[in-house]
């Protein structure tokens, strides 16, 4: 592995870590709302969140590119704020990845919140806990397996993305060139040996994440408590 490869690995890790952290912040309130609401909007919002599961990454990447480009609404906003345009930058890649991995965070966390049911929260209310207090001291600890699954899946899914990165990030070393793109470049250049190192590494990493998810996931153990 040369420096370019190591740079790609580091960038990929950084991207996945930032995206997972952001998804915990953004995905949790969405999951909470979806788990508890009786609003008719639940179906619509749920479907929008799940879209990246079925949409070709190029479609998502294309619209984000248009929106964040100099003529797009987001692009004009970021331009007016003096932030420049986001495509082909690391922050642009982060935003695109957040959308792309959103269902992988929201769905496990939403399921975990739903599995808790009303009862523990009602009990906490009778024990003087305010809604905010109940959320942190009862809902979040009881949904921990969901957060664990969501974080692992989001991280791994961001590491594994390719299409969205190509559309929105291009291929700029140390800024947007992640492992999957680097592998593509090696293969294009017929550098199979180097492609093997990175591809094999991805395979092992992905397997370990899935192994952890399926071996230690305590979601089932807590049921019927």
């Amino acid at each position: 592995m040369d420096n370019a490869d190591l740079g790609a690995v580091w960038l990929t890790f950084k991207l996945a870590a930032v995206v997972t952290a952001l998804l915990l912040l953004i995905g949790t309130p969405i999951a909470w709302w979806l788990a508890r609401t009786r609003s008719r909007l639940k179906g619509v919002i749920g479907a929008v969140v799940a879209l990246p599961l079925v949409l070709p990454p190029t479609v998502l990447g294309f619209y984000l590119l248009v929106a964040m480009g100099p003529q797009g609404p987001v692009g004009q906003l970021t331009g007016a704020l003096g932030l420049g345009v986001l495509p082909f930058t690391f922050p642009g890649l982060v935003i695109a990845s957040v959308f792309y991995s959103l269902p992988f965070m929201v769905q496990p966390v939403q399921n975990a919140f739903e599995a808790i049911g009303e009862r523990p929260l009602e009990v906490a209310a009778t024990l003087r806990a305010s809604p905010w207090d109940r959320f942190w001291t009862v809902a979040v600890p009881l949904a921990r397996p969901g957060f664990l699954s969501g974080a692992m899946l989001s991280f791994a899914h961001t590491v594994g993305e390719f299409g969205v990165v190509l559309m929105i990030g291009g291929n700029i070393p140390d800024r947007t060139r992640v492992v999957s793109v680097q592998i593509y470049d090696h293969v294009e250049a017929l550098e199979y040996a180097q492609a093997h190192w990175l591809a094999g590494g991805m395979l092992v990493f992905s397997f370990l994440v899935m192994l952890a998810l399926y071996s230690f996931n305590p979601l089932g153990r807590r049921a019927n408590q």
Partner: protein
Amino acid sequence: MSEDIRACFHVSRGDFRLDVDLTLPGRGVSALFGPSGSGKTTCLRAMAGFDRAPDSLFTIGAEIWQNEAKGIFVPTHQRALGYVFQEASLFPHLSVRRNLEFGQKRMAVAERRFELDAVADLLSIATLLERMPEGLSGGERQRVAIARALLAAPRLLLMDEPLSGLDIRRKQEFLPYLERLHNELSIPVIYVSHAPDEVARLADHLVLLDNGRAVASGPLGETLARIDLPPAFADDAEVVLATTLSRHEADNLSQLEFEGGCIRIGRRPEALGSRLRCRIQASDVSLALDQPRTSSILNILPATISAISPNDMPGYVLVQLRVGAIPLLARITERSCRELRIAIGQPVWAQIKAVALLA
């Protein structure tokens, strides 16, 4: 009077309507009793503030927890109440001790009324404190749940069939703890149940709910002795006497005193002065116009007829009589009623064939 609990709820859910306007005593155990679907739990949930119904009012003493006419609704977490659910619903991620502390540590120290160790002793859970809820038996969990509710220093304790998840043996183990709460703490309890024996043992005040309405509400003895109730409640007509063990007699007998007089039963192991409740079924009481002097029945009390209900089982009437101020029920045949010319106000002798002790 000022400590009374006033509960006026109008809840509408699909086909079901709950319309109650209750005044409950500010001390002792008030039981909400009725068949399933009668609105007991709906009523209790409204008291806790889990569900907010329009046009409702809920006050306890001078505290107003809900008065929709004035737009007042205190959210559950600001009401000083304890709630014990059918299932113990302990927090699975916290040890027994931290479950117990959950409510306690959310209150100012000055507000706390009980010590954790004292409550743990009262409910015999002191040895379980460091365990996780997973490893506890059903009865242990429910005792922890009650202790947890008590430690939140409630003004009012709401219990939703806390025994229904327990088998008969556990229930028998558990009832004494509830009686102890009743005797040692001054917190009013509202107790939802559909089990007549629990109500007979625990309640001081009885509310009969049927199809979302309160068909009767009053002191236990008085309410059980009402003869104008729907058939669902009149089936096993009986009264409950609150008595005190006053004397052990020769021939292995014990004497129980109650406000209207005294009765004798087989010798009891309890100490003199113990409070005991006993149940007398209407079918175990017969009437005589003259004092029977040659009967094998031990408990024969002078009484006065206070009401007669002809609409009982075919061929029978239900008669309410008073021994002093205390009401009893007797189920006699229509023919006896006619031939003895039983009428309201008439003095009679009530012969009590069987007395069942509730312990």
